[in-house]
């Protein structure tokens, strides 16, 4: 039973990983790439690790997989945020199709 659910989770995780990488290829500028890939890949890898936990149960590997999942969930948004901010500050222009851009004007005022 556990192995069936674990396999399903791993398959979902793999599909989201693949979609994330596809987004990394297809989207036009760095901010959209960050959107598509960072979250899809984070959640996909979390799915794979949760599947590993269900496969192994409460053994050394399973508990370590849970810890690794928590660690990735804590750090991935921080690095995505830092990358977006540094891309803005290093002068990467948003794509032409961008609808509104309220950050470029206010950027100098915020420290």
């Amino acid at each position, binding site marked *: 039973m556990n192995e069936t659910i674990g*396999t399903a989770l*791993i*398959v979902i*995780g*793999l599909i989201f*990983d*693949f979609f*994330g*990488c*596809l987004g*990394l*290829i*297809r989207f036009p500028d*760095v901010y959209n*790439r*960050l959107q598509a*890939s*960072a979250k899809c*890949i*984070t959640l*996909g*890898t979390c799915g*794979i*690790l949760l*599947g*590993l936990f269900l*496969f*192994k149960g409460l053994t*050394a*590997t399973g508990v*370590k*997989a849970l*810890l*690794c999942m928590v*660690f*990735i969930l804590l*750090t*991935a948004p*921080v*690095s*995505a945020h*830092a*990358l977006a*901010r*540094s*891309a803005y*500050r*290093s002068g*990467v222009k948003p794509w032409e199709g961008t609808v509104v851009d309220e950050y470029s004007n206010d950027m100098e005022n915020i420290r």
Partner: protein
Amino acid sequence: MNTNWVFGFIVIVIIAAAILLLPLPSMMQWQSEFLERAFLCLLVSAGLCLWRVLRGPTAPDRAVAIDMLGILIVGFCAVLSIATGRDWYIDIGIAWALQSFIGIMALSKYLEGKEFDE
């Protein structure tokens, strides 16, 4: 409207069909065929990431792709840990996630043009 997407769509379909239908070489003596296909899918994803590293027009593009590659490798370690039944692969995953995070933070600080001691 650009018509580039037809080409891209055909490539996607070919990749998906290759992952699902390709006869696998029996080099890998693993437990099940499903895990080999999972490994192949992750390899293709990592290849797409590397393509972005090669082609990315700006430096933040490459940084994003490298960050994603780091998280994908944790997934690799998890699949390898199931497939081979060895526990220490997940240790490699934890260490890789940690050091990838620190590297990306340093890189983004450098791109932002700030001092490192903040």
